[in-house]
């Protein structure tokens, strides 16, 4: 058995879509991180590029060898998020893309019917829309996505290095703790905007719901934070070396938005899993979301938003020196974060009942005429009752 068996079993890989040469020639050589970080002469990880809707970026250990598996579709997704973040107020594009993302996620969860319904809605909406405007210049997005992909990979490599070494140094640990605790203790620093005060209030409101909950500053969280910081430092030194110091501000911004996007996707995935369980189990309600776990989940979300405002403030301070308005990009990403949350909760509120009914109708063969809200979906559902639902959903999503 080889690493290919693992890749093949854990994601539906479309290897022909991956542009391996770009990574092999331009990105992987930059990632010879250990030579600088730990004195090793070569990166101990073997890099592999995949292209799948699992979007998983991971370090895996198999038969004593470590691999960095990078899913290029994650980079493509970040590119869309960059466009959505810059494309202020384009709610329609956000809804259209979220439908696609959610459908792909539900496919992975084995929830084929709901994936198909969302894929049909996505396809219908996209057909009648211009989708994206060209709010951000191509060149700017090109640098952003280059940095963000580098950041994702560097983060994973630093995890691998920390595992190989004896863990975190005392200094790194103290720095991480100080950062985490300091942010929670002093939420009203002068450099925060009035918007951040609102987030601060939201945060404490949610925390109070999670009665007795304290943000768990455990080893795992500290390691994550350190790898974030190390990856940021890596990008902030490597990329300006290639393109000149004038890009530093944009590099920092791109790293912070990448950080925000990954956290956003984690939360969205967790919510979609709950959503799918509610439907699949036939309960159709979300009582579980009122549980303590859900409150903690919401508190973590608010915490990430909170940290992001500090990032924006940091970057704005830097912008004053360089004249590049990087902070605005982070703020736009936070807006995107909030907008996608709203889109998602709207789907949960407005579609959970109808989706459950459609599922029942599917099972019992009842007439679907009442569900005109999904437009063409009704005919598609009728004609595909006995066929490959996942395959149809994939085709509609462009796979």
């Amino acid at each position: 058995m080889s690493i290919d068996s693992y890749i093949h079993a854990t994601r539906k890989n479309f290897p022909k879509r991956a542009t391996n040469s770009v990574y092999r020639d331009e990105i992987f050589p930059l990632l010879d991180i250990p030579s600088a970080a730990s004195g090793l002469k070569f990166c101990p990880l073997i890099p592999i590029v995949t292209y799948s809707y699992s979007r998983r970026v991971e370090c895996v250990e198999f038969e004593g060898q470590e691999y960095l598996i990078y899913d290029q579709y994650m980079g493509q997704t970040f590119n869309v998020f960059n466009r959505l973040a810059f494309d202020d107020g384009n709610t329609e594009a956000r809804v259209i893309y979220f439908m696609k993302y959610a459908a792909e996620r539900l496919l992975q969860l084995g929830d084929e019917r709901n994936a198909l319904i969302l894929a049909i809605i996505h396809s219908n909406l996209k057909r009648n829309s211009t989708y994206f405007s060209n709010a951000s210049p191509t060149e700017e997005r090109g640098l952003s996505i280059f940095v963000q992909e580098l950041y994702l990979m560097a983060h994973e490599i630093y995890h691998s290095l920390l595992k190989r070494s004896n863990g975190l140094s005392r200094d790194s640990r103290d720095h991480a703790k100080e950062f985490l605790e300091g942010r929670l203790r002093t939420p009203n620093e002068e450099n925060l905007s009035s918007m951040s005060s609102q987030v601060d209030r939201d945060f404490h409101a949610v925390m109070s719901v999670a009665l007795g909950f304290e943000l768990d500053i455990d080893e795992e969280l500290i390691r994550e934070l350190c790898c974030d910081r190390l990856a940021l430092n890596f990008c902030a030194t490597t990329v300006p070396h290639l393109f000149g110091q004038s890009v530093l501000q944009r590099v920092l911004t791109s790293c912070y938005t990448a950080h925000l996007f990954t956290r956003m996707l984690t939360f969205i995935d967790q919510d979609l899993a709950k959503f799918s369980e509610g439907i699949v189990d036939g309960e159709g309600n979300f009582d579980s979301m009122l549980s303590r776990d859900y409150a903690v989940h919401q508190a973590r979300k608010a915490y990430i938003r909170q940290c992001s405002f500090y990032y924006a403030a940091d970057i704005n301070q830097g912008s004053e020196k360089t004249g590049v308005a990087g902070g605005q990009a982070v703020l736009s990403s936070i807006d995107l974060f909030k907008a996608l949350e709203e889109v998602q909760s709207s789907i949960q509120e407005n579609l959970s009942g109808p989706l459950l009914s459609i599922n029942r109708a599917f099972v019992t063969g009842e007439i679907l005429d009442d569900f005109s809200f999904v437009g063409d979906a009704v005919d598609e559902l009728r004609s595909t009752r006995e066929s490959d639902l996942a395959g149809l959903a994939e085709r509609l999503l462009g796979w």
Partner: protein
Amino acid sequence: MQHIAIEVTERDIDELRSEFNNRNIKVDVVRSNGFDASSIVTLIVELSPVTAGLVATLYGIRKRSEKHIKLKHRGIEIKGVSEAALLKILERAEKLDN
């Protein structure tokens, strides 16, 4: 050749691995860390008429004792796991590949 991914927790890995090894079924263990801070341990087993029954039985036992277990084939989580369902997946996948 079709492979199935069995996601479990680190503390359960030895027990499951020996269930396969005792029947001379080759199994590989892959440990991964992803960007969402998740650590996953995955057993990779060839899906065949020989292994389908055992995989379904082990899945059922772990589910009943409320232990974490997920089965994936080509990245898609398998719902309603049974020997028959796994054999159907195998048949369909082989048809698609040929």
